[in-house]
């Protein structure tokens, strides 16, 4: 009897994770990469005031979990619902009066984390560029992918306002002179590429982002916090960008 009670309790705890909001953070993996500033054709969806011309930065990053347990994301709606009577008799397929059992992954945490996520962030920054002097127009991003049996597909367009969870700042390091030459290059203390035109700091935080169960209608909430610094920004012309 005692054993049975303990068993029931532990299962109750496991399944209660289903109901509560899951808190966690996502860390954006920062590989060494060169982000390209691509001038876009004049038929772009937006116009820039002279002397600036439209330019976009396109990037894609894979998100990795930093400190959350992905176990609840492996819940499946296909479960064997069993009822265990005190006599020890097992009745299958009855939901009332019984309890649900779900399969828990018992492999090491680190292995599960690595296999648990396939979420990526794709972002396009639409800008107006005058040399390395950039003005922000809008950011469009998609956060999509899968963790276990849960899927997310979050799409948003953000303007210069203060309402969104997307914080972006920029420091131009390269000012152009009257004759088109270099006016002044400000020392870049953390630079990797000497001809980098500037630094973009980006921070995205989305509280309670819902992940939908693929084979059911459950929903799990996850806090997304990710930040990234672009310090290797170079300008490529449209010809190179097409290749």
């Amino acid at each position, binding site marked *: 009897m005692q054993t049975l009670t303990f068993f029931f309790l532990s299962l109750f705890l496991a399944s209660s994770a289903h109901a509560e909001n899951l808190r966690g953070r996502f860390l954006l993996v920062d590989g060494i990469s060169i982000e390209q500033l691509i001038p876009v054709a004049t038929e772009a969806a937006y116009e820039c005031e002279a002397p600036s011309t439209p330019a976009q930065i396109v990037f894609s990053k894979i998100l990795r979990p930093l400190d959350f347990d992905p176990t609840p994301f492996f819940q499946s709606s296909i479960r064997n619902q069993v009822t265990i009577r005190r006599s020890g008799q097992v009745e299958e397929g009855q939901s009332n009066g019984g309890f649900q059992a779900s399969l828990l992954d018992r492999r090491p945490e680190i292995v599960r984390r690595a296999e648990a996520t396939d979420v990526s962030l794709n972002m396009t920054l639409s800008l107006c560029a005058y040399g390395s*002097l950039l003005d922000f127009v809008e950011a469009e991003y998609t956060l999509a992918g899968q963790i276990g049996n849960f899927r997310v597909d979050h799409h948003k367009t953000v303007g210069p306002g*203060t309402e969104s969870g997307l914080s972006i700042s920029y420091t131009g390091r390269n000012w152009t002179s009257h004759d088109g030459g270099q006016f002044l290059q400000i020392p870049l203390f953390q630079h990797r590429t000497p001809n980098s035109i500037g630094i973009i700091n980006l921070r995205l935080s989305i509280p309670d982002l819902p992940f939908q169960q693929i084979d059911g209608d459950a929903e799990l909430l996850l806090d997304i916090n990710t930040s990234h610094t672009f310090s290797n920004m170079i300008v490529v012309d449209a010809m190179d960008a097409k290749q």
Partner: protein
Amino acid sequence: MRLHSLIGWPTLRLIAASFLMVIWGGAAYAYDFDFSYRQNRDVAVSLQPVTNAPSDQTCPEHAGLVQISTKIDLAEIGTITIEPNLPEILRAGRIDYGSGSYIDQNAAMDIEIDLLGCVFRQNFLPLNGQFTISGDYDVGRIADEAAVFVSNDNRRSSPKVDYQTHWSGLVHGFAPGEAVRIPGLLQDQIMGTLTLDLSRLDAPLTSDDRPVQLAMFSRLRLRFIVVSD
């Protein structure tokens, strides 16, 4: 006859160590007080157009010459920690200012900023300027100690000025997880942030009852919210 056979290795090592202590102690005594400033409140500065521009100051085409000219009460927006810089052996005997670091609650301190730069829409390029520190502390006074800034100066000891254009989202303040809150200022008005790093600045401390002593700012980093005029 060799020296070590006369007085032995342990004694020789002790003598060598004593010499090192004296040399090290002398170097550490180059200044008398270590000042460390920590900002804990936000303050705004504005970019003003320069009407009578000096002839040697030019900006790139389409950019305009602007200045930041203001005086900020640093005691109001942060705290100053003072630590007597004494060799351990002397520190034990000092009881007048305490033997360790302490926050000077009564300190008065301000900075005068005169910064010239170019502006293109939200982008700001600091060209050159001067920052003047004045203060009245428990341990003495600092009168108009100036640090000169030139944009392409790369030396470690010179002041660093860094401007970040704000594009989107909230600008975070000093309290963790909180947005900048300055009375009368809306987040939408924020153009960017300006960071000044005057760390390693040293200044003479004068007082009525003591000879001139030297203060060294091991940490003097300031951040201002930039708004256009």
